[in-house]
């Protein structure tokens, strides 16, 4: 209960100065599913209030679970009954419907525009109750309540912490090709709903990166006419421009301890990876090569950086161990591997990969076995970002003439597209856990 309270306090504290947009930028469309997903039924939750609710919480929970690809969600019109309390649950109904699990719930109005949701998860096969929970939140944060419930159910069923109560940031661009345009840095819920604009500029914005406590973003903005790195505090909107150097100032990524920023500067003649200590503002040069060294990203233990370098003639991923400066090339398959991101367990590397067909796709390399799997089959796929629990990779791709966000599970079995309502969508960055 206290954990839950903290969770919703976060949402209250983080009510940003920008107005929450009513429109939805992104909507999910599943393009491919797994062969044998686990069947789960989410029954519409009971509602004891007088006025109609603005959100169908059970439907949002079902959509969250369905998007992971490991569950298949039962269609409501196939349900034989609509239990909302334990004494209304008849397991035979759900066994007949070939369901493995059942989620029911009740929505109870509270004073001060608050809502309480009680929910229970049942194992249909074993005829037992698995989970008994409740959530309280504001009426206008009903989707957040739903994501919380989905996280609880996901963790109960998989043993892995859910990541639905997280956020994504991304960049949208509207441009005519004459160099003029409107660029926006946006933030939305992990399912693309509730987008808000964090920054709007006439000049390009790129490379957003979350701090590990999810309170700040670092990104590159050209608003001064040249690329510069900015840090923006999400709660206050306060911005700080880091000292700029001649040439490139780019590719910022936050260290796991939150105290350092890996970035790229070309002040010494060509792009090199540096680490900026945000407490002392000391700058340490990490790479020394006349080729391009860029796109640094931290290993989860903070001991290494992976980065893109063309020192071998074409872009490939390298890893440098910071205490010893020992360098290791990680990728060998394909003629272009770039912008790698590691999963939080350090096991997998997601990257942009170009093989012999010269098409850019998202690939994952198992760092233990060296095996590389190509996950996507679309066009110009880039900017992979991994959910904090490692379940899904979001990336930027093209649909028609437009940049959209795509999602794919780490095993490549489920893919979905988040079509955009406006402009080109690019460079998604998935937040860490928010609590």
């Amino acid at each position, binding site marked *: 209960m206290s954990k839950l309270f903290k969770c919703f306090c976060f949402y209250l504290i983080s009510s940003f100065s920008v107005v929450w947009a009513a429109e939805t930028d992104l909507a999910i469309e599943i393009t491919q599913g797994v062969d044998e997903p686990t069947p789960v039924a989410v029954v519409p939750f009971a509602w004891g209030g007088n006025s109609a609710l603005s959100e169908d919480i059970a439907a949002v929970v079902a959509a969250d679970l369905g998007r992971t690809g490991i569950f298949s969600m039962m269609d409501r019109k196939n349900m034989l009954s609509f239990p909302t309390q334990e004494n209304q649950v008849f397991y035979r109904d759900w066994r007949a419907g070939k369901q493995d699990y059942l989620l029911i719930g009740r929505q109870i109005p509270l004073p001060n525009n608050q809502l309480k949701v009680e929910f229970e998860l049942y194992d249909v096969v074993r005829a037992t109750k698995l989970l008994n929970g409740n959530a309280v939140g504001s009426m206008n944060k009903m989707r957040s309540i739903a994501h919380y419930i989905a996280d609880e159910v996901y963790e109960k069923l998989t043993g892995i912490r859910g990541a639905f109560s997280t956020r994504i940031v991304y960049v949208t661009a509207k441009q005519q090709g004459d160099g003029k345009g409107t660029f926006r840095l946006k933030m939305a819920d992990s399912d693309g709903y509730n987008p808000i604009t964090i920054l709007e500029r006439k000049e390009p914005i790129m*490379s957003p990166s979350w701090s590990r406590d999810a309170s700040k973003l670092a990104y590159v903005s050209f608003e001064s006419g040249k690329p510069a790195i900015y840090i923006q505090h999400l709660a206050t909107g306060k911005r700080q421009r880091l000292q700029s150097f001649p040439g490139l100032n780019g590719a910022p990524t936050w260290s796991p301890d939150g105290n350092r920023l890996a970035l790229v500067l070309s002040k010494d003649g060509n792009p090199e990876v540096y680490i900026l200590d945000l407490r002392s503002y000391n700058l340490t040069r990490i790479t020394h090569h006349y080729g391009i060294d860029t796109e640094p990203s931290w290993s989860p233990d903070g001991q290494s950086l992976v980065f893109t370098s063309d020192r071998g003639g074409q872009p490939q991923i390298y890893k440098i161990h910071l205490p010893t400066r020992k360098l290791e090339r990680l990728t060998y398959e394909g003629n272009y591997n770039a912008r790698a991101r590691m999963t939080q367990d350090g096991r997998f590397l997601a990257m942009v990969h170009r093989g012999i067909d010269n098409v850019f796709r998202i690939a994952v390399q198992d760092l233990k076995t060296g095996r590389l799997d190509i996950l996507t089959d679309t066009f*110009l796929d880039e900017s992979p970002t991994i959910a904090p629990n490692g379940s899904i990779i979001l990336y930027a791709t093209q649909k028609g003439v437009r940049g959209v966000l795509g999602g794919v599970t780490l095993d490549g079995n489920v893919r979905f597209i988040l079509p955009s309502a406006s402009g080109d969508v690019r460079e998604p960055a998935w937040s860490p856990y928010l609590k």
Partner: protein
Amino acid sequence: MRANNVTKAVALALSVAWVAGCSTSGSSTDTSSTGTDGSATQAVNVDSGVSVSYEDVANLQTVFYFDFDKAVVKADGFADLEKHAQYLAANPSAQVVLEGHADERGTREYNMALGERRAKAVSRFLQVNAVSAGQIETVSFGEEKPAMLGHSESSWSKNRRVELKYVAR
């Protein structure tokens, strides 16, 4: 005329050498051996009486295109780049910004590096032609500011470019 060709050859060789990261001295030796009578020193001497006015410069090519994943100045841009160089060398207060761009293929930050490489290749060409480094500023926009929208080679070839812009005459 021959001197002009050698100038191009030297500039090209230097750009290539820079891109390849080789030492420039080794490449210069190669270049003078390709010149017919070893007139390399004469070639760098561009302020040889030819006067280029700002009006002349205004009619010159200011956008220079590149091959995919390459940062080598193409020969069809040499003549106009040399005239820009002559003007800049003769007018030390004149200044240019070289904006490097890439097409949309490949990752965004890598393309920032590629755009910078292209801008620097043009900068190197101008400097070989007697322009002082202080008159040139380079900035990369990567793939962020395409000249032409679209997802085919007809757009991409227009986006792999360096734009030369005068900020002081």
